[in-house]
């Protein structure tokens, strides 16, 4: 019995840590666990986990961009915000159906993202990072000041999506949509990074010269990377506004972009499961765990301090991200035994 359970655990963990092929099963399994959650946890925990999912989606896009194409963007929050306002404006003010609004809301940020991608041919490294920051700052000012569209500092609300007038979703229903988006995106991303496109992106990151010599069109792949990163970010923005039923200018600030960056660094760059893990750490650790600890939760700000320390400690000791811990643990548990057994 014990042996069987160990084997099952082993299978599951190894697959999620990308050691064995076909991680679809694991992603789906993970999805099912997420879907069951609403029946277990209370409402506000669900909201927290919903946000985790939203930010995980945006972080997956940034992971593609930073981890694979080596381009760094601090504009994620701006793009998320833009799509969230579009989604809210289209569904609430103009009564567009959910999917139509999703398409349009995602289209505009992606065009902007492509623009940044074009620019990335001329501006690189930290210049690009700060240039994207400037783009996000401009967008945020627009969110603040273009009141007719954004509601200014009062923010703007939206409803839970209403799909084809058939499914009038409630919070749990919207949550399930979030989970579906996350899992589908995880699978698609997994496919992509294992494909020639993924290799081309990595090559471009490692060496411009080698990439070009091997026939990789830098412009094309930078555009792809930016398009996907903004696509993910803006999907996340749309989901955010429908799940939280609101959007507000100061959410979409530099801090959020940095947090999303923190997700992939803490979770593990170039790792899908790492990114999701990172999102859980960054966006739920403080709320679900730290604040529940009696002493820490009571003193305002203390949980922030502890979390700040934690981030630094993780980066100093696990530069490859937390996913590395899992892999190490699993390796030390299973592989050694396997080797012995096979001898």
């Amino acid at each position, binding site marked *: 019995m014990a042996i069987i359970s160990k084997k099952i655990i082993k299978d599951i963990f190894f697959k999620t840590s990308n050691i064995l092929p076909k991680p679809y099963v694991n992603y789906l399994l993970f999805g099912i666990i997420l879907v069951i959650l609403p029946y277990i946890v*209370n409402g506000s925990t669900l909201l927290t986990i919903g946000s985790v999912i939203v930010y995980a989606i945006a972080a997956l896009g940034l992971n593609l961009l930073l981890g694979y194409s080596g381009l760094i963007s601090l504009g994620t929050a701006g793009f998320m915000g833009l799509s969230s306002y579009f989604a809210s404006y289209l569904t609430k003010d103009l009564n567009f159906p959910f999917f139509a609004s999703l398409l349009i809301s995602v289209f505009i940020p992606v065009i902007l993202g492509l623009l940044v991608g*074009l620019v990335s041919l001329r501006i690189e490294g930290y210049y690009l990072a700060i240039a994207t920051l400037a783009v996000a700052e401009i967008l945020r000012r627009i969110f603040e000041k273009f*009141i007719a569209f954004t509601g*200014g500092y*009062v*923010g703007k609300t939206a409803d839970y999506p209403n799909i084809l007038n058939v499914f009038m979703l409630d919070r749990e229903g919207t949550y399930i949509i979030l989970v579906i988006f996350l899992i589908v995106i995880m699978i698609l991303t997994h496919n992509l990074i294992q494909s020639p496109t993924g290799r081309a992106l990595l090559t471009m990151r490692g060496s411009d010269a080698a990439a070009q010599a091997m026939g990789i069109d830098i412009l094309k792949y930078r555009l792809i990377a930016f398009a996907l990163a903004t696509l993910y970010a803006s999907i996340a923005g749309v989901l955010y506004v429908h799940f939280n039923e609101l959007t507000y200018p100061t*959410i979409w600030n530099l801090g959020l972009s940095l947090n999303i960056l923190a997700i992939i660094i803490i979770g593990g760059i170039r790792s899908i499961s790492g990114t999701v893990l990172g999102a859980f750490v960054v966006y739920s650790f403080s709320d679900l765990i730290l604040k529940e600890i009696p002493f820490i939760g009571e003193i*305002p700000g203390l949980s922030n301090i502890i979390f700040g320390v934690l981030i630094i400690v993780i980066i100093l000791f696990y530069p490859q991200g937390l996913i590395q811990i899992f892999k190490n643990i699993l390796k030390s548990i299973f592989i050694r035994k396997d080797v012995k057994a096979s001898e």
Partner: protein
Amino acid sequence: NKTTVSETENNYVQGITATEIKVGNCAATSGAGATIGIPFNAGIQAYFDMVNDAGGVNGRTINFVHEDDEFDPAKGKQCVEDMMNDEKIFALVGHFGTPTIAATLDDVKEKGIPVVYFASGLASLYNENATGEDRGIYPVQPIYVMEGRLIVARAVAEYDSKKIGAIYTSDDAGTDMITGIRNQVNKLGDEYTLVEQQVTPGASDYSAAVAKMKQEGVDVVIVATIQASFTPIVKELAKQNVNKPAFTSYINADGTLIGLVKDDVGTKFPIYANAWVDVSDTNAVTLFATEIVESSGVPLYAANAFSMAGWIAGHYFIEGLKNVDGDLTWTSYMDGIESEPIKNPFGGQIDYSNGKRLGTQEMSLLKMDVTTSTWAAHKPIANLESILGDTDLGLDEDKSSLGLYYVIGGVVLVVVVAGIVYFVVKSKRRDEE
């Protein structure tokens, strides 16, 4: 007029037991909003401590719970749900932060939970005739749009100013106030003109906006901003020697601000602030000061506008409670709070009867006294009508319908720019290769 305690616990509404009433709020007690949230909650707690020490209301003590939402509306929304559904509070007291309030207004209405005191002057709280699920909303603070109008009225009444300058922040407080200011200036007629300048809250340089005031030669300057921007703007006015009387919102009628600006301003120009609280009533102030210091242990809070606001929030909730007839339920509470006008401990009163949800409509005028570092009472409490003889108290907001065209225009612009840049980059690349 006594509330009878039901026999079986099952009959109690949420948040009520035989000995306790649980109320709560979500406020920022960490991060940037902590400056407001912590003293505010301390004020509420101080009032409840006082009530509890005196035996509570009808044998029930008040249990005040609160959670930190870090001024993040998404967290605030979660927190409010927590409060309503998990903590099962009876009422929200001191609902905090404009974005969170805007985001949760529908939720709390749907739930039907009473909300007493909003730490915001959001225009959508204003309702002249609340019925149905809108009934549970009890704004206390003045609505910003109304305040904007009041400031103009005061400026005109005090100095007969024709050319009114206004510097406002781009946040909700500033933009709502400027709406009221524009509105009132328009109403006054053609001989009155408005010079307005928007500034970003938390900017590090306000000199351009102030220079504009100077260039235009305005008669008075209205500083329609939150506290963080008030100090630097006033300092800049002094620095550039604009030296025109300044009027500002009740938000800034805070003793601690005087210390920050008095060295710069000196006697160069007078500064007036609206006030919906009257601090000249020494009894009320002393009571507040002793209680808050005893409860929070922070002497500074005795002169803190936010803790005073919290105190008022506690007061309004308790006064409503005292008026309840029969079993304590949400409906009976609403009936109770509407049953008679409730006096503000620091002057003025609010009447919630017949669905009136107008917030404070009358304000006094204070004048900054730099020698004693206090806001001295200058004019007593009055409403628009008594200041200027203006009888129209409504808040006609000007909502432009141009939004859609701008949006479409913006979208087209982005697409066109993207196209142009694409072709430029392409052709450039062809050149380079």
